[in-house]
């Protein structure tokens, strides 16, 4: 599985000189800062700092850029926990339970859970990449639109589990998100409505919509309170309690490993990646939990599932980049640009001819993950100060940052206006007990779903069902999905009834 000679070459490349590591800590810090400010994207950070890598060695450049990637993925989770603002679509599910934990004064524990789950998730993702880069690359090549439809469908099933007491309201919120994803030009180039706004030709910008519906609407609700954490005694940033959260993470080994595996596999699929991985992992953790009712109200396993999956998806996304030269998302596209700056072409020949460099990138990332644990812990003391800011000052400041973030994404007035419209929508939905997260999931996955469905229809000649039986991976995924969604709950209900009968 591992080429021993190349591996020892990688070790000597990394550990005979300090140069490759010189930019790792600055990279992690940049990533953490960009990830934790709403509206600043990880890919944006990587693009902004790409010119800095001109003067670097290739390995140094790779480690610097991937350090931004690693730090940014974790930074997005920090704001999701503390302010209900997912830094990116990969942190949506972190907010579901992380924020309720913070509101209940358990922000230290939630941050610890997030940090440990991120570190373990990223570690597992890169270990899998190291061991399985060849078979994973072969698998990625076999992924077509039908497989993507099944994966996206799996992500969408989470909608049904997100409801605040009423399944109909949960589904309605999700379908409304799907409907909103249909605004603008279709994937086949048909011009549907842009609601008289040319900005919407490409559809609604998901990140500003997410900032508005999650954060801005929640901030309106917080107005009038004193602090984010009501109890004065709970407001401290305590390393001991963060470490307790870190320790608590390992009490859920199943959730941690399952989340990491889901993230690594889904992350490897180009174009789907971490946005879907964290949702699927969260949904699976909820379905398998003995106490699913606690999810959405501050369940530690919810935070672990989401963070482990989004962090391990980073390793997964590197599979397609290193093995095939295909960028799976915006961040890996920037990495591909760095490849070309150094006259390197990713793909099978890169792996074959420069295996030591590939291994050193992977090993370097494993080292980064350990550094993230240290840097993250130190930075949490600063980032966690947000709970000590009076709400009278915090609410308008973060609202202003939300609007700025919207502009940072789109570069036009459309961004801030999207934030404002979705803030209003979120306020109405929360008031009537509709889960706003379901709408975001529908909006995020709707376009992806439509594109893949259309491609499947075209490839299958209008007969997708027959085509499904010709695609073993899609069929396998579909069967697993059905077993998980229908089989497992039915078996659980049957066992419960049987136990009840015996007891009765």
């Amino acid at each position, binding site marked *: 599985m591992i080429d021993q000679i190349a591996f020892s070459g990688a070790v000597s490349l990394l550990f005979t000189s300090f140069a490759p590591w010189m930019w790792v800590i600055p990279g992690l810090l940049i990533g953490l800062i*960009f990830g934790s400010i709403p509206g*600043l994207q990880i890919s*944006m950070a990587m*693009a*902004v700092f790409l010119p800095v890598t001109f003067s670097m060695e290739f390995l140094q450049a790779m480690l610097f850029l991937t350090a931004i990637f690693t730090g940014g993925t974790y930074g997005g989770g920090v704001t999701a926990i503390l302010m209900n603002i997912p830094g990116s679509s990969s942190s949506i599910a972190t907010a579901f339970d992380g924020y309720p934990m913070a509101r209940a004064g358990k922000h230290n524990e939630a941050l610890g859970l997030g940090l440990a789950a991120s570190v373990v998730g990223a570690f597992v993702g890169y270990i899998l990449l190291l061991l399985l880069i060849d078979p994973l690359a072969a698998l990625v090549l076999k992924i077509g639109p039908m497989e993507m439809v099944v994966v996206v469908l799996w992500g969408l099933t989470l909608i049904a589990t997100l409801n605040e007491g*009423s399944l*109909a*309201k949960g*589904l*309605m919120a999700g*379908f*409304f998100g*799907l*409907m*909103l994803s*249909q605004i603008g030009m*279709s994937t*086949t180039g*048909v*011009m*549907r*409505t842009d609601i008289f706004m040319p900005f919407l030709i490409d559809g609604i910008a998901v990140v500003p919509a997410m900032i508005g519906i999650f954060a801005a609407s929640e901030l*309106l609700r917080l*107005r*009038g309170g004193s602090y984010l954490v009501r109890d004065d005694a709970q407001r401290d940033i305590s390393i001991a309690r963060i470490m307790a959260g870190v320790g608590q993470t390992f009490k859920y080994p199943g959730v941690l490993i399952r989340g990491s595996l889901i993230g690594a596999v889904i992350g490897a699929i180009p174009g789907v990646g971490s946005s879907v991985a964290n949702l699927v992992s969260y949904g699976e953790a909820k379905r398998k939990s003995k106490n699913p009712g606690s999810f959405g109200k501050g369940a530690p396993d919810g935070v672990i599932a989401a963070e482990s999956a989004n962090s391990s998806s980073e390793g997964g996304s590197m599979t397609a980049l290193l093995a095939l030269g295909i960028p799976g998302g915006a961040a890996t596209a920037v990495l591909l640009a760095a490849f070309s700056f150094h006259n390197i072409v990713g793909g099978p020949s890169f792996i074959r001819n420069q295996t030591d460099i590939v291994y050193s990138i992977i090993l370097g990332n494993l080292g980064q993950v350990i550094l993230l644990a240290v840097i993250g812990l130190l930075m949490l003391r600063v980032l966690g100060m947000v709970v000590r800011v*009076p709400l*009278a*000052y915090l*609410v*308008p*400041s973060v*609202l*202003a*940052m939300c*609007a*700025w973030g*919207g*502009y*940072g994404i789109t*570069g036009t*007035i459309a961004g*801030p*206006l999207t*934030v*404002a*419209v979705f*803030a*209003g*929508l979120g*306020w*109405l*939905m929360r*008031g*009537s007990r509709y889960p706003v997260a379901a709408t975001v999931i529908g909006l995020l996955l709707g376009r992806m*779903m*439509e594109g893949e*469905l*259309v491609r499947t*229809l*075209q490839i299958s000649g209008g007969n997708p069902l027959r085509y499904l039986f010709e695609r073993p991976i899609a069929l396998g995924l579909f069967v697993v999905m059905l077993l998980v969604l229908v089989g497992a709950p039915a078996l659980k209900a049957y066992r419960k009834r049987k136990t009840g009968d015996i007891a009765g």
Partner: protein
Amino acid sequence: MTGKLSAPHAALLGIILALTGYITWSALSASNTLNNLIVTVPVAILIAVLSGVILFAAFRSPTPPEPDETSAVWGDLLLLSGFALFCYALTHIGFDVATFVFVWAGVVMSGGKGLWQPPLFSALFTLVLVKGFGALFPYPMLTLVL
């Protein structure tokens, strides 16, 4: 009707149904091929069915006594309107001035005490945002003063 279905809930359902109807109509008029309607039409039908279910459930269930939250609702709406205005003003009067005014007013509306603390905080916050956050923007940013 609003005795069983609160006014915000009725407004939300109205918005969902109006937007769904409009998007579906627009998609149908643009092209009625399967590729164009593969998501829109099934989702529109499901939304219509779910609206019926939600309305039926709302009218069947006994109305709980609602706490008087009128002043809180108006306060939220005022801040929301101010926020929408601020979002619009960013690219029209400048990011710096719009942010300074919005944060000052927002702090006061959210219960910030003192005569000089809110404007001082707002000025410092705006400065940090323009010089820090703004410097990282890959787009040009209109400012009036800074």
